[in-house]
């Protein structure tokens, strides 16, 4: 092959340019730790990385949804547990209020029951972030409204909520709710916390009955009906406490699975887009050596000329 004056320089420029581009690419990969940044780098890997990022984002949201449901579950649990204490005390009073107690003692018990009903109504009207906890999806008003008679005794407690509950997605396609409705007499849907037609629970009416029987000294009725009724209420509360605990455990398990999935996605994204640093640095060193060699050999070749030897 015949070599002209510009063959060396043209070839050298092309070679140096190719090596410079390669160096720049490898240097960028080493600096960012990424093999893929732009769509043109590796379209297929980029596609998978974008999908994984989207999944990562959704998984993060599910984790936040779980945190919110856990907050609601814990808020509900605190109130249900307090309600259970009241129910336990009511059961004790119903057991203690026998024919051996004087009318004054029974009235004192009645007074205690009246206060317990007011306390229970307050618990059932509890809120979280301004929304009623036990009114179903009717969150803008207190779920229970209490009315008193002329003597200050509780005459009735009415449920103002509904029997629907908002469900939250905790992983793809899986929804649940940790909340409970205050009352459900429909026979279907979520079980009511204080009133439920399927379990026979009707805590407020049962407490009002106990209050009234204590006021009138009707210990026979207390023994015959109130004790059994309050036992149903207690069973119903135990069901809700147990259900709440199970849901919290499920949330914890799902959160843990979501965390594991997030870690797996990070690893997958890394596999798709990250550079193998050892390999990249070795290639960079190779390229730099070749660049240096091209510069040195080029400089020597370009300096040689017949003109140096002609006089």
């Amino acid at each position, binding site marked *: 092959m*015949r*070599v*002209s*004056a*510009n*063959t060396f320089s*043209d*070839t050298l420029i*092309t070679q140096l340019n190719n090596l410079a581009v390669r160096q720049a690419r490898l240097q960028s990969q080493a600096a*960012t*730790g*990424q093999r*893929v940044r*732009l*769509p*043109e*780098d*590796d*379209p*297929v890997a*980029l*596609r998978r990385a*974008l*999908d994984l*990022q*989207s999944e*990562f*984002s*959704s998984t*993060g*949201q599910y984790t*936040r*949804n779980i945190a*919110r*449901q856990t907050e609601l579950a814990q808020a509900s649990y605190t109130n249900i547990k307090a309600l259970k204490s009241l129910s336990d005390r009511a059961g004790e009073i119903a057991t203690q209020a026998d024919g051996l107690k004087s009318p004054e003692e029974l009235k004192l018990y009645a007074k205690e029951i009246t206060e317990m009903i007011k306390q229970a109504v307050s618990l059932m009207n509890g809120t979280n*972030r*301004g*929304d*009623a906890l036990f009114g*179903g*999806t*009717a*969150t*803008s008003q207190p779920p229970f409204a209490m009315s008193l008679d002329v003597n200050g005794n509780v005459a009735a407690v009415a449920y103002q909520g509904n029997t*629907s509950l*908002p*469900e*939250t*997605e905790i992983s*793809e*396609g899986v929804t649940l709710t940790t909340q409970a409705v205050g009352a459900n007499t429909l026979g279907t849907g979520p079980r009511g916390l204080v009133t439920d037609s399927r379990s026979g629970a009707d805590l407020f009416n049962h407490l009002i009955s106990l209050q009234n029987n204590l006021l009138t000294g009707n210990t026979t009725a207390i023994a015959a009906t109130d004790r059994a009724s309050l036992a149903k209420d207690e069973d119903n509360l135990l069901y809700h406490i147990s259900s709440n605990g199970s849901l919290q455990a499920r949330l914890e398990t799902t959160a843990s699975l979501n965390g594991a999935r997030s870690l797996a996605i*990070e690893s997958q*994204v*890394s596999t798709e*887009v*990250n550079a193998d640093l050892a390999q990249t640095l070795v290639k960079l060193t190779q390229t730099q050596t070749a660049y240096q060699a091209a510069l040195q050999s080029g400089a020597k070749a370009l300096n040689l*000329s*017949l*003109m140096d030897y*002609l006089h």
Partner: protein
Amino acid sequence: MGARSLTAQRAGVEVAGQNLANVNNPAYARQRVAIATSLTIGTELGPQGTGADAVAITQMRSAILDNQIQAEASNRGSLTAQQTALQYTQAALGTQIDTLASGAEGTTASQGVGSGHSLSDSMSQLFNSFQSLSTNPTSMAERQTLLMNAAGVAAQFNQLNSRLNNLKGSLNSTIQSETGVANQLLTDIAALNKQITSAEASTGGAANDLRDTRQARLEELAKYVKLDLSNGNGGAVNIAIGGVAMVTDNQVTDSLQSYDAGGGQVLLRATTAGTPLALTGGSIQGTIDARDGAIANLQTSVNAIASALITQVNSVHAGGFGLAGSTGANFFNGSNAADISVNSVLLGDPALVQAAGVSGAAGDNQNALALAQLAQTKFAAFNGQTLNQAYSQTVAGFGQQLSTVNTQLGDQQTIENMLMSQRDSIGGVSLDEEMTDLTRFQKAFSASARLITTVDDMLDTIVNMKR
């Protein structure tokens, strides 16, 4: 004989000088002086030589290589134009993986997978906001966040559409300006045809330097449009583009004209013939291909995703109820990426966002949940993919086209380097060669001069014999 030889060697020195002077002229092909023995004369001893004459100055060119290089210039022009247009589009798209950046949810590199810096991130944020609203449907803060994120998605669609439209406008301007340059080159080549024909008719030899200039102009023109060349009269080159004769001998018979074919689609036609040109190479066609191919497809896909987002979200949202029981309102206004926006009524009062599935139940979240679950809904229109997956597919498809062009351009560069190297091997000037020739002709010139002085000495000897 001596004088003739001196002339021949001087011509050799002059050609070597011309070669040396043009060593860095890329259009130049080295020249050689052809020296031949002059006419012999008959003598008693037989035919006797009368020295040598410089008979021609020839150019070291390969017509095959010149044609190939000119054809490859069209291919390279097309690919370079496509690469440039697609790289601008890639920048306009703004999608990249950055594992060191904060993600959409504030995740950092150590915790997350980085950010895609794109519509994909924004759409994920929007659907996550619907999820957040479903966990707290009465929260004004969640409603406000949702509306801000939705406005962000809408703005990103608007910006992307606007960037792509601006880019198409810039590409149209490029087509128009390159058409002007190509027309000027056609005029230049017709003028060079005229000069070459005239010079070669008067001198009888090849007008080497004019041919060099014309070849350079042809290769320059071929970068813009693919040429069909044929030989004209008297050394002229005839040019046809897309089947329409543009230069015949020394006349420009037609020219290129850019025109708007409708909808801002600037194309090329022959000015006089009026026919649209079916180009198959060159940067103008490359720009048209990129604009009407990859970029148009990208814009169509982005519009389809925006339309689906608007339709689907509105369809679910309209069936829900606001905090005060309002219903029937659309969440988004508009119909595509160009005009998508969040319903201003909702922006004015976040309580009107219809998160509930039933009226009169502020804590109901059925509608918000249904809206959030649109993120996982697979649409037949997107081949069974979700909206986010459809966008990822669009970006990946575009990236594949750019990657293919990059590879083709790399291959094209290799081919052109080989052809240029071959042409350089034939026509490139070698300083060593020319210096050797210079010395060779100089020595021959000295020797020819010595012949004259020797003859002179001999004549002196004869003249002085009488004394």
